[in-house]
């Protein structure tokens, strides 16, 4: 069984690696966006799925990474690869600065604080025109790199999924979960919840920052509203809730299902798409709070480590 799963994974990865050889330009761009959503959903799951601290401003890390990466590329002539990694570092630094005060807040207060962070970042970016181009945005030098960005996004999605696997199958991940389960009991049992919360938060900020850098390079042009939209955070949340929060493959399942649906069917009917999204939120919250994988795990007594 284990070998079958590993073999299937290996074949899947191989096919994805070979895909650009036969793909159209549209196909590649479709897939690289899909990878981006997997990476974002998976990152959100690390803080909110595992520790239960629901972040409503996770796109702030994405936007920060996008701007940091884009600025390094345009004004310092960096290659977009290292520039995006630096974007990830910038996101982690932001998480470190706001993590200390914000992670003391409980429940909805943390969610709201994160929402506020995103608004603040967007305003800041608009304000410092000299660095960021302000409201008129930032254009990157023309470069046709979709093929490379495909692999970069894929690597990010793979890396954060691997990290989720390592965490959820280890005691460190269990300690993250005790914060979600009962923070007071966790403390009384000797778990330094403040520290583990911060670890989870920093981990969850890095990949969105990196992916933001890739996104900026892929788009060639960014502006405050394009990299700090609340809708991006909400999409991450819905993907994770739909697939199964706190699981390894739930965010992947949610991201793939919803993105494919969105692109293939609903993008043609703009308003219907939003209604559909709202309906999914209601459906999941009311009927399937543990998401698809959560339901399967409970019904078929599957281990959590899926």
């Amino acid at each position: 069984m284990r070998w079958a799963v590993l073999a299937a994974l290996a074949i899947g990865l191989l096919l994805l690696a070979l895909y650009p050889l036969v793909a159209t330009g549209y196909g590649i761009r479709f897939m690289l966006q899909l990878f981006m959503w997997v990476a974002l959903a998976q990152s959100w799951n690390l803080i909110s799925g595992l520790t239960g601290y629901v972040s409503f401003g996770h796109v702030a890390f994405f936007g920060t990474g996008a701007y940091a990466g884009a600025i390094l590329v345009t004004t310092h002539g960096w290659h977009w690869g290292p520039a995006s990694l630096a974007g990830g570092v910038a996101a982690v630094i932001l998480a470190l600065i706001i993590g200390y005060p914000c992670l003391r807040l409980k429940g909805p207060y943390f969610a709201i604080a994160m929402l506020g962070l995103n608004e603040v970042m967007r305003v800041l970016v608009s304000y410092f025109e000299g660095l960021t181009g302000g409201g008129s945005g930032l254009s990157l030098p023309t470069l046709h790199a979709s093929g490379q960005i495909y692999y970069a996004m894929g690597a990010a999605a793979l890396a954060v999924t691997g990290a989720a696997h390592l965490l959820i199958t280890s005691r460190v991940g269990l300690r993250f979960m005790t914060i979600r389960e009962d923070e007071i009991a966790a403390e009384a049992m000797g778990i330094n919840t403040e520290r583990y919360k911060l670890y989870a938060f920093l981990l969850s900020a890095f990949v969105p920052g990196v992916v933001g850098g890739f996104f900026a390079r892929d788009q060639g042009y960014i502006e405050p509203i394009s990299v700090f939209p609340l809708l991006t955070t909400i999409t991450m949340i819905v993907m994770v809730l739909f697939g199964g929060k706190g699981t390894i493959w739930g965010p992947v399942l949610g991201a793939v299902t919803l993105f494919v649906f969105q692109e293939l069917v609903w993008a043609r009917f703009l308003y219907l798409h939003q209604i559909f999204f709202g309906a999914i939120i209601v459906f999941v919250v009311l009927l399937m709070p543990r998401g698809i994988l959560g339901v399967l795990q409970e019904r078929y007594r599957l281990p959590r480590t899926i």
Partner: protein
Amino acid sequence: MDDGHLLEIRDLTKHFGGVVAVNRCSLVLAPGKIYGLIGPNGSGKTTLFNCITGLERRDAGEVFFRGERIDGLKPHQVAHRGIGRTFQIIRVFPELTALENLLVVTREPFEVAYRRAQELLRFVTLDLLENEYAGNLSYGQQKLLEFIRVLMRDPELILLDEPAAGVNRTLLNELLAAITRLRDQGKTILIVEHDMKVVMGLCEKLFVLDYGEKIAEGPPGVIQADPRVIEAYFGR
């Protein structure tokens, strides 16, 4: 400052707004004994536990453990000094399995922790349920799980807040036997319990709280006859 006491509380006071939950309470625990903490509802027993374990910040007074000040420490730091506790209202990790509830609280190498966890699960006859989510266990089973979760960390001092409530007869006897065995291993136990039969049978010494004040202490037999204690329990 080490005078052989395991725990010493001096003049501990804790207010909640206008309510004095614990009032200038002092007590001393020697190692290797089972102590009882009794008192009417709302007399401050749980609050005293919370102040010892750092979950509530005391307003005044001091707590010493093995001769060192521990008031002002964070709960996880108190736990690392060697104090473990259970809660009056069950606080297992419901969406972790029984086994994971135990594994997560230690830093021992996995193999060691795993063996220890299995031993403890067998000890309270939960071994067949190790992969069940803790939230799916019965009330009594969850209480036992919380109890052995404390033992996973092998603390010197164990604070039990009404461990017997809701546990059925058979399991209760096993629980009491387990507590005695821990004492025989040299552990110190402070137990809050309303069931007088349990308290009388188990404890060498009782502390009685009333309106947050310690109104009596002594062996169970003496306490039972103490007019102030009788007054506190029946005289209102």
